[in-house]
């Protein structure tokens, strides 16, 4: 039975209390076997999966999941495409990786060894030494033919990222030195809190030199050290993987076969799920999900909120009238976020949000008070602020957006109405995707945009989601945000080694964001991961990029199928 709003709040509160008093599973990774009686506490809309232990794991079987698009190619250095990462994840490995599975903390990455068996970090956080696992072999496919994975491969992979889409991974590095066959040392130019965590991200995949030497890139050939071998890719149809019999861990992967089918249409995915053609998909269509639960009551529905997609009204902060904090505050106070949450997300979203991931600044989901006075809906105060700023008669402004789903259309209509109530006449313009990306990411929009944040990497929840996005000279500052006080805080958090002090600094950045309304966040979107009950040890996508399916499907090697549940 679906959880009520109250139950959901209760579950979320339990998560926070559990985390606060240290109720963590002893082994938070399926590789080691879940030992806790319940998976990591999460917001499940329906059917929270039960606990299991290592001896419950069943080997064999296959898993089919649906993606909406096809990977353009297989070269991780050339694109950060969502579909490319999902397609290559089962085949490539990384030096380090986040813990996966239903016992892993979905809010904070906990990094564990992958191709590196251990590592040392110098006290000044400038030198990282990785000791590789011995005897790891590339898949037995030409031209690599099962050669051993060695330190030269790490150097080759990382150096190849320079000047390409993954430049952010290596831009902080001064040198990458191979100390011996199994040891590599990376020295940084300056402290970079995102560097180490991002080596565990879905982007930092170790790739073979031989393919690049033969083909010039990795676009057409997919050979890794991973648990699955790509057997067939029919463009725009499916990708089929089979277990790598020579995988370094003889116990894994648990599945014999993994398949991604390309289904661009939501209705098709829902029909295919009902008919058992696919076993996992993600959606934001609550009514359709409720329909599935009516016909398939045991379906697991996991609910999550995407920090990166914390949609907000992006302002041209370098231009009038949005360079005046009073105008931005007025706009923020004119938005009825509670109402928006009810109407757009059936009350399941979160009325308040800021795109800095909350675990970087808080211990639990921040309370409403953490957003300060300007996130409260107060039309009178909003009008007064506009008056104070000299815009008592209101003004006209354009709001551009791209319709990432119907919700964006509704949100824009609501924003238009809310701002109309304080005299701001909003002209809403829906843009084509190509135009939108050009205008938004390059900060070329005229006045306002319904924007979101795009961190590079994203594994480090404080630095990655603030430094390059909010600094005056930040490479991804689409808003023309320039506040010298904020810059000082951003630099300070970058240089701070003590985790508690960094958390306090990120909290101050959060407070500045809330106080100055650099971006006026609207109600936060809710999404759902849906899977059949026999799919074990997954939590699907939680919105951060260190998790599962979509942004990298590497974790599929720890997913298993319960055939008993499948037959029922």
């Amino acid at each position: 039975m679906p959880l009520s709003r109250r139950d959901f709040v209760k579950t979320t509160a339990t998560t926070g209390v559990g985390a606060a008093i240290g109720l963590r599973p002893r082994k938070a990774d399926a590789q080691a076997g879940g030992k806790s009686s319940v998976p990591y506490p999460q917001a499940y809309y329906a059917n929270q999966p039960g606990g299991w232990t290592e001896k419950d794991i069943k080997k064999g079987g296959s898993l089919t999941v649906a993606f909406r698009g096809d990977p353009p190619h297989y070269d991780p250095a050339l694109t950060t495409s969502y579909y490319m990462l999902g397609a290559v994840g089962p085949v490539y490995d990384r030096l380090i990786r986040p813990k996966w599975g239903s016992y892993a903390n979905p809010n904070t990455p906990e990094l564990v060894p992958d191709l590196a068996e251990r590592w040392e970090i110098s006290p000044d956080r400038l030198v990282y030494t990785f000791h590789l696992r011995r005897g790891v072999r590339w898949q037995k496919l030409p031209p690599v033919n099962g050669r051993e994975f060695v330190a030269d491969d790490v150097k080759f992979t990382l150096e190849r990222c320079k000047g390409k889409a993954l430049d952010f991974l290596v831009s902080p590095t001064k040198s990458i030195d191979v100390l011996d066959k199994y040891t590599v040392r990376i020295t940084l130019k300056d402290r970079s809190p995102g560097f180490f965590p991002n080596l565990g991200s879905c982007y930092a995949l170790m790739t073979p030199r031989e393919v690049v030497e033969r083909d010039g890139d990795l676009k057409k050939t997919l050979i890794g050290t991973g648990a699955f071998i790509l057997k067939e890719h029919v463009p725009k149809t499916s990708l089929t993987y089979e277990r790598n019999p020579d995988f370094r861990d003889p116990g894994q992967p648990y599945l014999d076969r993994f398949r991604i089918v390309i289904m661009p249409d939501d209705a098709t995915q829902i029909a295919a799920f009902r008919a058992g053609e696919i076993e996992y998909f993600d959606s934001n269509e609550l009514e359709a999900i409720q329909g599935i639960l009516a016909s398939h009551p045991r379906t697991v529905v996991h609910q999550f909120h995407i920090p990166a997609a914390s949609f907000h009204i992006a302002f041209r902060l370098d231009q009038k009238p949005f360079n005046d904090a009073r105008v931005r505050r007025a706009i923020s106070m004119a938005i009825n976020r509670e109402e928006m949450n009810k109407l757009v997300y059936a009350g399941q979203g979160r009325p308040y949000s800021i795109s800095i991931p909350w675990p970087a600044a808080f211990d639990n989901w921040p309370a409403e008070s953490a957003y300060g006075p300007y996130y409260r809906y107060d039309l009178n105060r909003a009008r007064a602020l506009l008056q104070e700023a000299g815009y008592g008669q209101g003004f006209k402004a354009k709001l551009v957006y791209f319709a990432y789903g119907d919700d964006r259309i509704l949100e824009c209509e609501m924003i238009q109405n809310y701002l109309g109530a304080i005299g701001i006449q909003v002209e809403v313009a829906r843009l084509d995707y190509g135009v939108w990306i050009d205008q938004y990411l390059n900060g070329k929009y005229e006045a306002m945009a319904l924007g979101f944040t795009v961190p590079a990497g994203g594994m480090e929840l404080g630095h990655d989601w603030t430094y390059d996005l909010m600094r005056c000279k930040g490479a991804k500052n689409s808003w023309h945000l320039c506040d010298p006080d904020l810059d000082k805080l951003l630099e300070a958090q970058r240089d701070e080694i003590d985790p508690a002090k960094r958390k306090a600094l990120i909290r101050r950045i959060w407070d500045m964001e809330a106080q100055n309304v650099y971006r006026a966040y609207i109600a936060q979107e809710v999404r759902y991961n849906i899977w059949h009950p026999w799919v074990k040890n997954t939590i699907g996508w939680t919105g951060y990029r260190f998790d599962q399916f979509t942004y990298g499907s590497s974790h599929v090697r720890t997913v298993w199928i319960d055939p008993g549940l499948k037959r029922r």
Partner: protein
Amino acid sequence: MLQYAARRALASIPLLLLVSLLAFSVIRLIPGDAVMLMLTEIGNISPDKLDRIRAELGVDRPFLEQFLIWVAGVIHGDLGRSIWTGRPVGAEILRTLPVTLELAVLSIAISLLVAIPIGIVSAVWRNSALDYASRLFAMVGLSVPEFALATVALLVLSLYVGWVPSLVYVPLWEVPGRNLGTLAVPSLILGFALAAVTMRMTRSAMLEVLREDYIRTARSKGLPEVTVVVRHALKNALNPIITIIGIQARRLIGSTVVIETIFALPGIGRLTVDALLNRDFTQLQGCILVIALAVVLMNLLVDLSYAWLDPRIDYR
């Protein structure tokens, strides 16, 4: 007739060139480009990085130069490489075209199998219950859009039957049974929509022919009604029906885009739409050329079939 066909084929060359030039220009008028989209998720796009990639892909050259390079490639059988995937455009089209062709052929076959008998029955027993039922069938087919029908079909099948056609396409020559299973429902849906129009045309053409003197003569000779209707009436009513089939086949190109998306079929319709959304100019250009060629060929086939059906028509 061969001479006529050759003349038509030659005449289609400037037409195809014109279509290509138009498409080439219009595509480049659309704001946004593939390079921007490729770098979307990176976020930090420096102008020099953009310029370098544009130069690598050749999209920074003057318009006319790009067009002439493309035409020269086409003459040599090379449609270029997709900007987005790097795969050869020709190979992508060859991979996707059979899916769409199979879907189109099956849909037209289903529509003819349904529409012509119903159209004849409706005309022969005009204003009977059968006629009213047939007209209702046509009205439903005309008024319900294919995408709605497809979505409802998937919903009903998955919800009440617990089955959907296999949504992972396999080519006909690999596993024929599974291929036909995958295409059955989408072909039926497209066929139903096409049948509605064809049925109405069959009915009206038959009604007209059945009033002709030579039909009365055939009946007065004592020929069986089946012979009168099929051999004398239907054959003479076929010309407008063939015309409408030709028009419908061209319309199918648009309909298959939607159906291919809903049923996850990797056809040329989906390839074209994806190329458009990704601003994959080379792929899109190739798709438009092939679709234009298909339309030209279809027109030619329809024109040639007139002469085959009606000996009075002579192409000289």
